[in-house]
């Protein structure tokens, strides 16, 4: 072990997250591989090691015999300070080698607030931040993950982006890089070739022109780069490689359990939801596959909990068969099965009743909008009746706490909608009085609100975001509308939402802002411990850019959007139509009732969605 590290580790919190050496890590002989790749997660070890994409891609990239893919995470503040003091570069956990020795750095970016941490990790690695300042072929720096459906603010720093699912694409890219390294290609030659791999977006090959008002005038591909980069998907998830031997951390992480990914995509078309649109088309795994992979993973990890992952678990067609199959293995071994993101319906309640080790305390509903009209407008298919009915069963069954999640600032929201949230809480309270078996334990009803963030590639991508002052006004309105004592109200701060809004729909000029924030000490901005709104405001000001223009402005339908070169499958016309239906408070059917021809099916080459 590095002498400096040996001296630092006894002084920092939870040192085991900085050492590697976990069970199922992959160690290769560095003299026998041709490419060394550092898979970088711009957040803490505990978050990164809980990320399913990271678990899958670590193994699929390592399945290439000529590649050794290792991991790197962002150190927490105390470790960061110690490393600075000791002049220690960022290193990869498996070998302990510093990142500047690697041929490629691949970042997994799931949320915009991680951008400054990416810059910080590059700097800690001793790698020049900007793509233009890295003249040689190696190291190649690239990024993937859901934030990259508009990675423009990161465009100056990344050599390329991988858009969509990486199981196949990453390996094609690494195969090309191997050849480029062996044949001594220039960086430009490699990037030009890489742009022809499906899903690879090379920002340097696109010229962006701006209008005098600051909006994008045109996006011009050069050097033979495709006009639109279509995201990659894995067409057949049952056949796709799925590692059943993930690394088992030796220290506690956020999700210490086996994940079972039921399907990708979502049949619901909630209009505010980016995930529901960018992961289309829906592709489900067979229950047999899931049961087999789940049991294998349990055996290979020794975990005592399994959780079913997807955007909407209740929409999995074979949920009962799957749960039966898993319970048959899990129950005799006291392995717990968890089903997050269930919908508020009877079926789900019955299922939860059957599950072992479900502590009957918390029931969570993402209601999102305060009135039926608003929920119709955002296409969130939850009715008050359904919700109260589920609560009634739950209270009668011994549950005594309900959490209701809402967004404030959704398009078309009125003050009446906000008062509707308080009404709903009252009704839930009333429902508890009517149905609870044992009233002595009392009830806890919690309302949480966050500020709506319009996201690219969703029907609301053109929408305005309310200002943080307006958000606070709505928070106060709701606060004063809540009268019952058993109802607690928590609201998330809007400051992070404002920055997230600016970044998620930003253009590549925001690269300067990111660098300025980082230079002023910004990193781990997804953590309230480290986030400073003032630092962001100052950075925007010093770069001569207007935060509000980026965060809250409504985009015109005729505008060229900064992410227009990225095609996630869903057609623009579909998004426009969905937005119009929002203003008419019209619901759209889910994909199972009726296909809305959103466009995503084209990626399945003749097969149907959700088959």
């Amino acid at each position, binding site marked *: *072990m590095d002498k400096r590290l*040996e*001296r630092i*580790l*006894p002084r920092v919190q*939870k*040192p*085991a997250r*900085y*050492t*590697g*050496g*976990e*069970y199922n*890590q992959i160690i290769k002989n560095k003299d026998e591989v041709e490419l060394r790749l550092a898979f970088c997660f711009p957040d803490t070890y505990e978050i990164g090691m809980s990320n399913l994409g990271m678990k899958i891609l670590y193994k699929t990239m390592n399945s290439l015999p000529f590649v050794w893919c290792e991991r790197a995470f962002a150190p927490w503040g105390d470790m960061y300070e110690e490393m600075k003091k000791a002049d220690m570069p960022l290193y990869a956990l498996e070998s302990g080698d510093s990142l500047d020795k690697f041929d490629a750095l691949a970042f997994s970016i799931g949320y915009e607030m991680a951008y400054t941490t990416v810059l910080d990790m590059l700097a800690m690695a001793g790698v020049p931040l900007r793509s233009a300042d890295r003249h040689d072929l190696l190291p190649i720096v690239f990024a993937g993950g859901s934030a990259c459906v508009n990675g423009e603010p990161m465009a100056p720093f990344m050599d390329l982006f991988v858009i969509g699912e990486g199981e196949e694409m990453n390996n094609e890219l690494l195969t090309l890089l191997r050849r480029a390294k062996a044949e001594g290609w220039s960086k430009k030659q490699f990037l030009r070739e890489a742009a022809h791999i499906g899903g690879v977006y090379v920002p340097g090959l696109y010229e962006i022109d701006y209008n005098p008002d600051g909006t994008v005038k045109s996006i011009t591909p050069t050097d033979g780069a495709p006009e639109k980069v279509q995201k990659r998907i894995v067409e057949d998830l049952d056949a796709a490689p799925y590692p059943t031997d993930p690394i*088992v951390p*030796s*220290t*506690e992480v956020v999700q*210490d359990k086996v994940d079972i990914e039921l399907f990708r995509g979502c049949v619901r078309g909630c209009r505010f939801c980016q995930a529901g649109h960018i992961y289309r088309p829906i592709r489900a795994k067979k229950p047999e596959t899931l049961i087999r992979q789940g049991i294998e993973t349990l*055996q*290979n*990890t*020794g*975990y*005592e909990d399994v959780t079913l992952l997807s955007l909407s678990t209740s929409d999995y067609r074979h949920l009962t068969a799957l749960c039966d199959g898993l319970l048959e293995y899990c129950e005799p*071994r*006291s392995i717990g099965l968890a089903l997050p993101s269930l919908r508020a319906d009877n079926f789900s309640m019955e299922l939860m009743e059957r599950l072992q080790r479900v502590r009957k305390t918390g029931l969570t509903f993402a209601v999102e909008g305060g009135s039926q009209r608003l929920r119709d407008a955002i296409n969130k298919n939850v009715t008050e009746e359904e919700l109260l009915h589920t609560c009634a069963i739950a209270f009668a069954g011994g549950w005594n706490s309900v959490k209701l999640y809402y967004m404030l600032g959704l398009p078309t929201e009125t003050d009446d909608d906000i008062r509707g949230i308080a009404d709903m809480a009252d009704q839930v309270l009333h429902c508890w009085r009517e149905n609870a078996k044992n009233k002595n334990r009392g009830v806890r009803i919690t309302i949480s609100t966050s500020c709506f963030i319009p996201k690219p590639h969703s029907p609301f991508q053109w929408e305005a975001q309310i200002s943080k002052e307006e958000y606070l006004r709505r928070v106060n309105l709701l606060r004063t509308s809540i009268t019952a004592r058993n109802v607690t109200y928590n609201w998330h701060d809007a400051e992070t939402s404002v920055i997230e809004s600016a970044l998620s729909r930003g253009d590549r000029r925001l690269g300067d802002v990111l660098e300025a924030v980082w230079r002023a000490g910004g990193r781990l901005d997804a953590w309230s411990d480290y986030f400073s709104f003032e630092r962001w405001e100052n950075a925007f000001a010093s770069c001569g850019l207007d935060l509000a223009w980026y965060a809250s402005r409504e985009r015109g339908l005729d505008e060229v959007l900064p992410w227009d070169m990225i095609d996630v499958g869903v057609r623009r016309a579909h998004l426009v139509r969905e937005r119009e239906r929002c203003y008419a408070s019209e619901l759209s059917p889910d994909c199972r009732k009726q296909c809305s021809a959103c466009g995503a099916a084209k990626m399945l080459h003749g097969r149907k969605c959700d088959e």
Partner: protein
Amino acid sequence: MNKLRMRFSKTGRAIYISHLDLMATMQRAFSRAGNRLKYSEGFNPRPQISIALPLSVGCASVCELMDFQLLEEQVDITSLKDRLNATMPEGIEVQEIYEPTRKNAELKWLAIEGVFEYDDRSVDIMCNQLAAFFSRESIVIEKKTKRGFGEVDVRPSIREISFFARAGGAVALAATISAQNPTLNPDLLPASLRALCPEIAPDFAKFTRIEPYDAEMKVFR
């Protein structure tokens, strides 16, 4: 199945795994090896495992003792060791598994080895000075207790200690210290130097547990 005792080492990168995390790591290793630990009864069941002398983070050991019980009635103990070693994280290695005959309370002394590193000082005469320091009648230092600060004499907890110069600005030490009643944390050795004789206090110190003994200095198993 009856109570079993495992002797294992925890070295290399594994020394940073905390006591609590080690418990979870052990439970998972057993279940990967195809055996299950017995759990306590009650609302929040925990695996029934107990480690004789919890090891502090950063300290290595080649002689940890852990008692456990398996749910299975028939277990082949010899193959269990190999099966466990095949599923342990780097740095944890089972040396033997056996049915214990002695109680952990009989454990009294621990042989340890350590390295004191000196960055810019010559270690030539350091060994003699260190030996002289630790042969004092008493070595009383301040120690944090539950109720603020107290004084503790570490000298009676050191049965023997010797120092050897090593290449590269380091001094190796071998010592026998009290394992329990009272427990001497090896970190108190450099700490007492820092408090009472900073000129010879090392810039960095690390330790490895070598062997546990009973009160008669017989190897404890």
